[in-house]
C-alpha cells in the first residue's frame, strides 16, 4: 500500500475501532450495571439519576440473597438437569450421528431427514402438546420431566454426524476387516477422534439446559424443582422492588456460564460455525 491509500486506511481503521468500541460498550454496560446494583444498599439503588459506584460496597447482599431465597436448591436443581442433559446428549447424539455418518442401512435417509426436519421445530411452538404428553407420563414435578425433552437434540445429532464424516474412512476399514463389532469401532476408534466436537456439544447442551426457562416453567409447579432461571423470575415477582438482591441473584446465576465461556470460548464459537453454516 502506498501514500494516500494508507492514510485512508488509517482513518477507516480508526472509524472501525470507534464503532466496535461503541458497540462493545452497549454490550457490557447492562452487565456492569447489574454488578454495580448488586453491591448497593436498596436506598442507593433507587437514587435518580443513577450513580455508578456503590458506596459502600455491600458484599453481604450476596450472602443475604442466598439466605432469603433457596438459591442453593436452585443451583443444585440446575446442575442436576444440566449435567444429565449433557451426558445424555454426549452418548445419544454421538451414537445416532455415528450411525448416520458411517453405517449404510435401510431407512437411513428417512431417519436423517426426519431429524433434520426437527431442527425446524423450536420448543415454544410445541410446548402445549409436550406439556400434555409429560402430564400423561406422570412427569410433571420431576427431574425426569425437565431432563427427558432435552436429552437428545436434533442439532447435536447433526453436529456429531458432521464430525464423524470428517474422520478418515481408512481408519475404520482395517478394524472392519478384523471383524470388530460396530460398537467397538465406534467406542474405541471413532469416538476418540471426535473429541473436539464432543466438547463443543457438551458446552452447547450445558448452556441450553442451564438457561432454559420455558420447560421448567411448564414442568416444575412445585418449587422444590425450580431451576435458577425459573427461581429468579419467581423471586422477582415476589420481591419486586429489591433490585440489589435480584441483581445479585442474576450475577450468581451467570457466573458458571461465564467461567465456562472464558475457558472454552473457541469451542463455543466453533459450535456455532459448524452448525450455523449448513
Amino acid at each position, binding site marked *: 500500500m502506498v501514500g494516500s491509500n494508507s492514510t485512508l486506511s488509517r482513518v477507516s481503521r480508526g472509524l472501525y475501532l470507534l464503532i466496535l468500541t461503541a458497540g462493545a460498550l452497549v454490550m457490557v454496560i447492562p452487565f456492569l450495571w447489574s454488578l454495580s*446494583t448488586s453491591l448497593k444498599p436498596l436506598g442507593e439503588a433507587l437514587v435518580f439519576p443513577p450513580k455508578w459506584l456503590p458506596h459502600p460496597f455491600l458484599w453481604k447482599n450476596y450472602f443475604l440473597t442466598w439466605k432469603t431465597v433457596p438459591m442453593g436448591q436452585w443451583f443444585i436443581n440446575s446442575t442436576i438437569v444440566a449435567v444429565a442433559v449433557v451426558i445424555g446428549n454426549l452418548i445419544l447424539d454421538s451414537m445416532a450421528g455415528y450411525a448416520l455418518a458411517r453405517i449404510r*442401512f435401510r431407512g437411513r435417509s428417512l431417519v436423517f431427514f426426519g*431429524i433434520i426436519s426437527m431442527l425446524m421445530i423450536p420448543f415454544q*411452538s410445541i410446548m402445549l402438546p409436550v406439556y400434555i*404428553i409429560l402430564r400423561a407420563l406422570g412427569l410433571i414435578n420431576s427431574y425426569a420431566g425437565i431432563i427427558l425433552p432435552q436429552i437428545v437434540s436434533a442439532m447435536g445429532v447433526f453436529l456429531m454426524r458432521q464430525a464423524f464424516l470428517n474422520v478418515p474412512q481408512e481408519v475404520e476399514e482395517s478394524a472392519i476387516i478384523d471383524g470388530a463389532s460396530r460398537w467397538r469401532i465406534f467406542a474405541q476408534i471413532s469416538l476418540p477422534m471426535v473429541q473436539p466436537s464432543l466438547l463443543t456439544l457438551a458446552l452447547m447442551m450445558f448452556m441450553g439446559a442451564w438457561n432454559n426457562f420455558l420447560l421448567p*416453567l411448564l414442568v416444575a409447579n412445585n418449587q422444590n424443582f425450580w431451576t435458577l432461571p425459573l427461581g429468579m423470575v419467581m423471586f422477582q*415477582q415476589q420481591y419486586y422492588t429489591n433490585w440489589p438482591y435480584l441483581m445479585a441473584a*442474576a450475577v450468581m446465576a451467570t457466573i458458571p456460564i461465564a467461567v465456562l465461556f472464558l475457558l472454552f470460548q473457541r469451542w463455543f464459537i466453533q459450535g456455532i460455525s459448524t452448525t450455523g453454516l449448513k
Partner: protein
Amino acid sequence: MGTAVLLKNTEKRGGMEHWRRQETAAAYMFSLPTIILLLVFSLGPAAYAFFLSGVSWNLLNHMHWVGLSNYAAILHMPLFWTSVKNSVIFAAVVMPVQTVIAMIIAVIMNQNLPARPIYRLVFFFPSISSSAVTSLMFMWIFNKLGLLNGFLTMAGISGPNWIGNPRFALSAIMILNIWSTAGYFMVVFLAGLQAIPRTLYEAAAIDGASALQRFWNITVPLLRPSTFFIVVMGLIGTLQMFDQSFIISGGTGGPLNSTMTIALLIYQEIFSYGQVGYGAAATVFLFVLVLGLTILTNRWLGKPIEY
C-alpha cells in the same frame, strides 16, 4: 466405502446379505433411543397439536371432537389478533435490525484490527446468558428510575416508564432481543466471511473498487448462505418469542396486552383458561405462519451462489 473391504468381509462372514442385515441392526441399535425420544418430544407433539386443535378439552373433563370450531373461535377472538399483530411487528423489526447489525459488526471485525478476540468475546457474551437473567437486567434498566432514563435525563429528555407503558413495552423487549442475539449471528457471519476468497477483494481493489463497492458487490452477495440461515433462524426465534414477554410482563402480556405474543397466548390458553383446543389451534397457526415465511425466505435467499 471401498468395495474391497466389503468383499473381504463377505468372504469371511459368508454372504453380503448377512453383513447388510448386521449393519442395519447395528445402525438401529445406535439410533433407536434418539429416534424414540425425538418422536415422543418433538415430531410426535407437532403432529399431536393438529389433533388437539380439533377437540374441546380443559385437561380435566373428557375431550370431545369439535372439528374446526376452535379455529373459528380463535379467529373471532380479538386477543388472538392482538398477539398475532405483536409477534409479527416484533419479528418485522427485530429480525432485519439484528441481521444488519450482525453483518456490519462481522464485516468490521473481519478487518485486521487490534484486540479482535476481546471485541468478539464482548459481543458474543449476551447471547449465552439466560433469557431470565437478561430480562431481569433490562427490566431494571428500563425502570422509570433506571439507567436508560438516567442517560436520557442527561440529554434533557424525561424518559417514560418503559415497561409499564403500552406504547413502549414491546419496543423495550425489541431492544433487549436485538441486544442479546446480534452477537450470536455476528459469529455466524464471521464464519461465512472466512469462506469468501481473499483474491476476489484483491482483484476488486486493483480494479479500483471502493470499500463500499466491495461490500455491496462482493461481501453481501457472497454471504447469502449465512444470511439465509440467519434470516430463517431470526424469523423462527422472533415469531415464537415467549420468555422475555412472560418475564417482563409477569406472565400477563400486559400492559393492556401490548406484549402478548402468540406463544404467550398459547401458554395462557392452557394454564389460565384451560382451553387446550384453542391453544392447539393457535399452535397450528404459528406452525403455518413460520413455515410459510421460511418457504418465502427460501425462494428469496436460498438459491446457491453463482460466481
